[in-house]
């Protein structure tokens, strides 16, 4: 009898706990971005020796950066791949020193996504921008000078 009552109690508890579980609902997204903080310099001695690599869908990144910024060396200090939420802001934080806030404004005509970007440096917003980001067409953001080089933020949209 005692065993039966114990079993019924345990079973009831399990049912109750299971009923209270709310299934995790993943928020809707409008794509996925890769963001990286890059240190550009002509002085190889200033590099940190990190081994971060860009994703395969961003070929020849250093070469492409070199076409825009007058530096020889480009080192990825940090990187972050992030879903762009439809209903909430998304943070892309490859570094606490320079990071992005992204708000999706929905899909863009002819592909890509409409974004509102904010580039933050600690507690200060450096720039706010409305942009259309398309896969295969990264955004290079020229940031502040550091040491004898410059910090650059790269943002690219993953292909679906």
């Amino acid at each position: 009898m005692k065993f039966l009552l114990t079993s019924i109690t345990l079973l009831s508890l399990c049912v109750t706990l299971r009923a209270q579980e709310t299934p995790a609902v993943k928020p809707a997204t409008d794509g996925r971005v890769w963001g990286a903080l890059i240190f550009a310099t002509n002085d190889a001695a200033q590099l940190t020796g990190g081994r971060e690599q860009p994703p395969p869908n961003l070929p020849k990144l250093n070469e492409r950066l070199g076409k825009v910024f007058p530096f020889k060396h480009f080192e990825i200090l940090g990187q972050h791949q992030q879903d762009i939420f439809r209903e909430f802001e998304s943070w892309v934080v490859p570094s606490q020193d320079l990071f992005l806030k992204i708000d999706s404004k929905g899909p863009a005509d002819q592909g890509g996504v409409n974004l509102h970007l904010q580039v933050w440096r600690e507690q200060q917003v450096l720039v706010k921008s409305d942009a259309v980001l398309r896969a295969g067409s990264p955004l290079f953001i020229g940031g502040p000078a550091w040491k004898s080089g410059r910090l650059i933020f790269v943002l690219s949209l993953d292909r679906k």
Partner: protein
Amino acid sequence: MKPPSEDHDLIRWLDGEMNATEHAAFETRLKTDPALANEAQVLRALSVGIRSHLPADMTVPHADFFNSQIQVRIGQLEIDNERAQATAAPGDLLRWLRQPWLTAAGAVALAVLGLVLLRPIAETSANSFILSSYTPKIGVQAHAFHDEAADATVLMLDGLDAIPADRKVSGIHVKHSETEPQLAATTLYDVAGGRLLMISRDATGLPLIWSNSPRG
């Protein structure tokens, strides 16, 4: 505890929402109820204070830029509208496809049409572009352009304060994140699943970052 109707009477009197009869009756109450009269006086003073310190009209910072950016975005909206109209499927084609005797052939035609439409879109897919930018800090300027050689869109920020050379700037490798919408907080995790940091916003909208490791 006072019933809600009494509280409502007080603020209706304060905000001039009473009719003449109600107003006269309340004024009589104020004369015979010192506590109520005091409360009314305090709320009236507060109301005056709020109105005098919260203007209904404020100078917009960078007002010319405010207007010009709206014009830029309106211009872009018009361009997008024209593009959307130019790529819309013609009505005749859709009616033809809906013919019953064309069901099987229509499905094939749609698939072929889809491939044909998709290929041109992929080939002519435009580059990323910047619609508008705003730099709150005076002296900082943003200019955007597309660099064909780099096959990238560039947003150049000039006039930023340099980061001191002796400051340690470091990065993290975030593998995945979890967002708690109710808390408006996002936790970032590294490749090994370790928690790197949490980011949220304070009451004024400034980002708050909590990190496990101290920064240099």
